[in-house]
C-alpha cells in the first residue's frame, strides 16, 4: 500500500431529479475532495467531467439517485445509480448527438447528446446497466 492510505476512501451524494439549483454540486465537491487528496490534475479532470455529466443525467431524466465513489490505491470507482425511466436502447443512447432531453433542459444548455460518450471517453472502464421503468446504473473506473 502506498503512502496515500491504508483504508479505502468512499463517500456518496444524494441526487434529486429536477433539482437544478444543486446540479453539479456533487461533482464539484468530489473534484475538491480528489484535489485535496493530491491526485494528479488529469485524473481529477477526467473524474469530475464524467461525474458531472452523469449527475446532470440523473437530474434531467430520473426521479432520484445516488452518486458513490470508492478510492483504493490504484483505482477510483464512481457509481451513479438512479430510480428513473431507464434507457430502452443503450447503443443508441451512447451515440454522439443522440438526445431525448426535454425542452426545459435544452433551454438550460443541456441535450447535446454528448454526456454518455464523454463519460466513456474519460473513464478506463465504463459500464451502463438499465432496466426500463426501474432505473439506470453507470459505473466508471479510472486507473490512478
Amino acid at each position, binding site marked *: 500500500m502506498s503512502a496515500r492510505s491504508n483504508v479505502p476512501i468512499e463517500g456518496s451524494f444524494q441526487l434529486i431529479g429536477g433539482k*437544478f*439549483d444543486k*446540479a*453539479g*454540486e456533487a*461533482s*464539484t465537491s468530489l*473534484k475538491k475532495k480528489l484535489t485535496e487528496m493530491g491526485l494528479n490534475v488529469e485524473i481529477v*479532470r477526467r473524474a*469530475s*467531467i464524467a461525474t*458531472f*455529466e452523469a449527475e*446532470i443525467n440523473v437530474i434531467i431524466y430520473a426521479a432520484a439517485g445516488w452518486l458513490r465513489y470508492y478510492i483504493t490505491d490504484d483505482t477510483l470507482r464512481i457509481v451513479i445509480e438512479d430510480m428513473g425511466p431507464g434507457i430502452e436502447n443503450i447503443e443508441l443512447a451512447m451515440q454522439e448527438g443522440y438526445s431525448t432531453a426535454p425542452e426545459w433542459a435544452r433551454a*438550460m*444548455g*443541456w*441535450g*447535446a*447528446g*454528448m*454526456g454518455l460518450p*464523454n463519460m466513456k471517453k474519460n473513464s478506463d472502464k465504463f459500464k451502463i446497466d438499465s432496466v426500463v421503468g426501474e432505473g439506470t446504473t453507470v459505473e466508471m473506473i479510472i486507473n490512478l
Partner: protein
Amino acid sequence: MILGKISEILEAAVVTNPGNLDKDIKWAFSTDLLSNVLFYFIPDSLLLTGLIHPQVVRAAEVANIDGIVFVQGKKPEAETIALANEKKITLLVTPFCMYTASGKLYQAGLEGFPEL
C-alpha cells in the same frame, strides 16, 4: 491575451474577480451547449455564452475555464455571480452578440480551440 485586454476589446463590464485580469488566456470557445464545454476541455481558456444560470460556472469549474463572457448584455443571475466569486472565475458581460464578440477576439489574435 490577458483577460483585461479581452474585456477592453469586448467593451465588457467585469462582474467578478477583477483581480484576475492579468490572467493569460490562450484559447476561446463559444457555445450555448454545456456538454460541449465539458467535451472540448482545454486549459487557460475562455468561454463565450448566452447561458447565465449557475450551472455554467459549475461546468466551467469542472473544465478548468478561467473566464466566462456573457454575450448580448445578459446579466448573470445572482447565484451565478456568488458561485463565480467562490470559484474565482472571472465573469464579463459584453454588449455584443456571440458572433460579433467572437469575431472581435479572433481578429485581435485570440484563437479558437484547436481541432481535436
